[in-house]
Structures are given as C-alpha cells and as structure tokens.
C-alpha cells in the first residue's frame, strides 16, 4: 500500500468488457487484467495497435466509464469511492485528459472559448487575469489568440482545435494528464514545441503524462516508461530504453521490427502477418506457462503467460 501512495496513479488488474444489446448481447473485451504505476513527474507512453484498449484505459482513469473489475488508485485513494460532486471536482482539477478526436471534443453549437469558460466556471480560478492567461497559453501552443478565440469549431483545423485543448490543459495545474494521440494532427515544428512544453511541465511542476500513441519513435523520444498493449492486455512494461533495446514479448518484437526505416525497402517476405503474431504469442505463452506477468529485469515486466 505504501508503494501505491508514492505513485501518483496505480492501476491494478483493470478490466473492461463492453456489452451491447440485451436479447443477444455481444461482449467486447477492451481491457483485460492491466496493472501499472505512474510516478510523479514522468511521462509514460501507452503503445498498441488500433483497438488494443488504449483509449478505454484513459476513459477509465477519467471516470467516464466504469471498470468491469479491478481498481484505480489516485494517490492511494480508490477512485471508485469518489462519488460526491465536490470530491469529483477536486479529482478533475488534478486529473485531466485530451481526447483523441479534436473535432468531436467541441460542441459544434458553441464558440471554442467555451472550453476555457467551463473550467473557469467550475474550478473557481481567479478571473481577473483570465484573458491574459488564456492568451499566454495560446501563444505557448503557437496559436494566435485573435485568430482562434471567438471562432466556431468548424472554422478551425484539427491541429488548431487540438492545440486549444492542450492550452486548456496548460491552464490547469494538473497532476496527471492523459494525452490520447495528442499531437497526431500537428505539423512537425509545432509537434516539437508541444512535446518540449510537456517535458518542461513534467520537470518543473511534477506533472505526469500518460502519452497514448501508436508512433513508436515518438514514444521513445518522449517517455521515461512505456506500456505495450496487445488485444486489451498489457504485454510489456517498464523502462522505455530497456523495452526498446531488448524487447521480450513476441508482439513487442514484431512491433519494433515493423517500424519503417529510412533507406530500407519494404520487403513482403519480412512482413509479419497478424496470424503469425497470434501463433508466436500463443507459443510464447505455452513455453512460459505459469510465469504470468513477471519481471524480466529491473523495472522491466513482461506478460509471459496468461494462465
């Protein structure tokens, strides 16, 4: 338990099964038995293919959906016990997210300024320097306030909307930021700026970032630790350098092998087929039966088997 207090966020055996339909229900296992910790002031990247459950983990942490089983602790406190309005407000003051699709994150009927107004209304920030502060954070993300404020969402580009959401998060003094495909819509130069901003915030203010991405290079560039997801399970986690330099799980190995390299031609012979990966993973689990989720080295964990 003391270990959990030290971490700003601890996830234990988290699972989420989506159920749709009543008469003939269909079940989707989105997240299965995932455990990890987030230390203060670190960036942890959450990597996995489309549909592997990354966004679902983010939404579970943000209490937007309920877990099917498992626990999430924020500074040692089970977040399921946060129920009343005031406690929830305190939680959201400190745990925030930036969603994957910037177009869907803005109510089309309101001007974009609403995202700032909402947090000022809810969290009781000092309004006397509101405009100044908003202009400041907009400049931080390379936006011209006069050209963005007062606009409707459809009048701005995806990248601009995404930066507005980043600015919103910057306005708040958060402990944990869940950044879902954060910079996917930004051009190279803005990307670097935003990434450096994040790194600066983690260093200066001790903010932790869960950086969801499927860009491996980006994950390597930015994160202290990494989580590799495969079909809803966490298959490898720990120190970024260790995972990238000596991956153990067959899925992780495949992932690093399939990164295109400059100067190397695409060779269909080398292409990993999904069926091949499934087979390799199955075999790996069989060979290591009984080991479960275990350490492969210091701060390096691997899912050896699923029994």
């Amino acid at each position: 338990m003391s270990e959990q207090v030290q971490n700003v966020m601890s996830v234990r055996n988290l699972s989420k099964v989506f159920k749709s339909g009543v008469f003939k229900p269909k079940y989707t296992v989105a997240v299965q038995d995932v455990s990890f910790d987030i230390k203060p002031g670190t960036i942890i990247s959450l990597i996995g293919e489309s549909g592997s459950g990354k966004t679902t983990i983010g939404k579970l942490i943000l209490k937007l959906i309920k877990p099917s089983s498992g626990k999430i602790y924020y500074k040692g406190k089970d977040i399921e016990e946060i129920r009343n309005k005031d406690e929830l407000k305190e939680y959201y003051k400190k745990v925030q997210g930036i969603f994957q699709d910037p177009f869907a994150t803005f109510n089309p009927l309101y001007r974009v300024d609403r995202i700032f107004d909402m947090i000022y209304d809810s969290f009781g920030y000092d309004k006397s320097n509101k405009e100044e502060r908003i202009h400041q954070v907009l400049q931080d993300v390379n936006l011209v306030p006069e050209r963005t404020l007062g606009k409707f969402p459809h009048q701005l580009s995806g990248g601009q909307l995404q930066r507005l959401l980043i600015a919103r998060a910057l306005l708040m003094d958060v402990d944990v930021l869940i950044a879902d495909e954060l910079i996917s819509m930004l051009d190279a130069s803005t990307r670097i700026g935003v990434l450096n901003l994040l790194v600066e915030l983690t260093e200066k203010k001790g903010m932790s970032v869960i950086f969801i991405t499927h860009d491996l290079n980006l994950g390597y560039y930015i994160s202290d630790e990494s989580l590799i997801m495969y079909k809803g399970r966490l298959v490898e986690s720990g120190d970024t350098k260790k995972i990238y330099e000596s991956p153990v799980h067959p899925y992780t190995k495949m992932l690093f092998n399939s990164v295109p390299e400059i100067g190397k031609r695409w060779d269909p012979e080398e292409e990993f087929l999904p069926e091949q990966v499934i087979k390799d993973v199955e075999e790996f689990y069989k060979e290591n039966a009984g080991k479960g989720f275990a350490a492969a080295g210091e701060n390096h964990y691997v899912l050896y088997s699923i029994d």
Partner: protein
Amino acid sequence: MAKEFWKKHENLYYAITNKKVIFGLTIFILVILLAIFGPMLTPYEYDEYAGAPYSPPSRQHLFGTNIMGQDVFTMTVYGLRTTLIVGLIAGTIATIIGCVVGFLAGYYGGSWFDEILMSLTNIFVVIPQLALLIILSAFLEVRGIMVMSIIVSATAWPWLARAVRAQTLSLRNQDYVNLSRISSLKVPRILREDIASNMFSYIFMSYILQFNGTMLATVQLEFLGLGPTKGISLGLVMQNAVNWNAIQLGMWWWGIIPGLILTVMITALYFVNTGLDAAFNPRLREM
C-alpha cells in the same frame, strides 16, 4: 441592450433574418390568417346553397361554386381550419410521444427498458400506416376532430422515436459531453447545452415535418371517406370534387384551389424547415 440581447440569442437572430424562414413564415402566416378570418369574411355558410351552381370564380364567389351551388371559398376556409387544427393536435401528440420514447430509450440505451420501448416502436413501424388508419376509422363510427387527431398521431410518432433515440445515444457518447464532464460542468447544464441544444433544432424541425405529415395523413383519410363524420375539411372538399367529377366537368376551381392552398402551405413550412436548419447550425450559416 439590444445588442446584448442578440448576442445571447444568436440562434434566434439567425433564424429570423434567414430569407427562407422569412419567406416560408410569411406565406404560412397568410394561410393561418385565411383560416382564422376567412369564415368572418364570407357571407355564406359552408353547407348552404349560396348561388348558382357551376359558377366559376367571380366577385360574389371568389373560388366559384360547386355542383350544389355551395361557395367553394367558404368551404375551403372552414375546411382549412379543421385541417390545421387536426394537424396541430396530431403533430403535437406525435412529437411529444416520439421525443419522450426516443429520449428515454436512448438515455437508457442498451438496457431492457430500451429494448422494450424499441420493440414496441418497431411494431408500430411495420404496421402499414394506411391500413391501421382505415381499420381504426372504420371501428369508430362517430369521428370528431380529436378522434381524428389521435388516430393520425398513432402512426406518426414511431419514426421520430427511432430518430430521437439514435440522436440521444450518439450525443451521450460524444467526446464534447466527456469534456464537459471532466470540466465538472453541472449535469443540468450538460443536458441543456450539450444534449438538448444539439437536439433542439432537430426536434423543432421534426415538429414541422410531423405537422405536415399529419395534415397530409388527415387529408388522405378524409379523401378515402374516413374523415370526420360531421363538419367540413380540406380533404372532404377535395373528395367531393372528385366524386362529382369536377375536373372532367370543367369545375377546376372546386378541386384544385383547396389542393393548391394545402400544397403552398406545406411547401412554405418546408422552406421554414430548411431555413431553420441553416440558422441553428453554425456550420450552415451563410457568412
């Protein structure tokens, strides 16, 4: 002061300055005025012998007279009144039922409650509308305006319920609702600003469509001889005209004028509908 007001009620401003809305609404209001004041302007009763039969439109008989010498203008304005009232009542009932069922089903989407509501709705959807109307009408021997309205609205609500359910379901899972939630916005404000306001224009327009739809359904029923057993309505006027072969006998004014008024009014409402769509949706506003 005025500027502040319009800033707050931007949608209203865009709505009442939209050309299509102005055009459609003007015509619609003229038709309403005709229904309200028409009966006062005419010296005749709708069922009395008012003048020489077969008369084409003239100063005494604006829309001419029919084969029995009844004044077509008088019949039309009285009929318009009934048809409008039935459309209004039936449209309102259908919209309310459709919205309540749809919203509840969508809000509790995926639950038993949702499943039951939707099964019920689907039963109503697959029943052929006209067949149900004919059967119901045949059983009820005395039919007044209210009964007519209920009969018509019984088959008009299901499509709206399904559409509203789909809307609620998708709005509930929108990321902007999630953003409001992690911004600790109060629930009533989320319901109002994120859910209801995104549905308002849709419901408002559905209401117009329901009004049109139920009016047409009413006229259809009347035309088949299943209309109100007493009184007059636009459908009855047209039915009579057809029964008496008005067009073949050269009395175009008997059947065509009432139909034309109905067509013009429904078209006007479609203009209002598309105009409002543009006004409520910032994306469609003409810059």
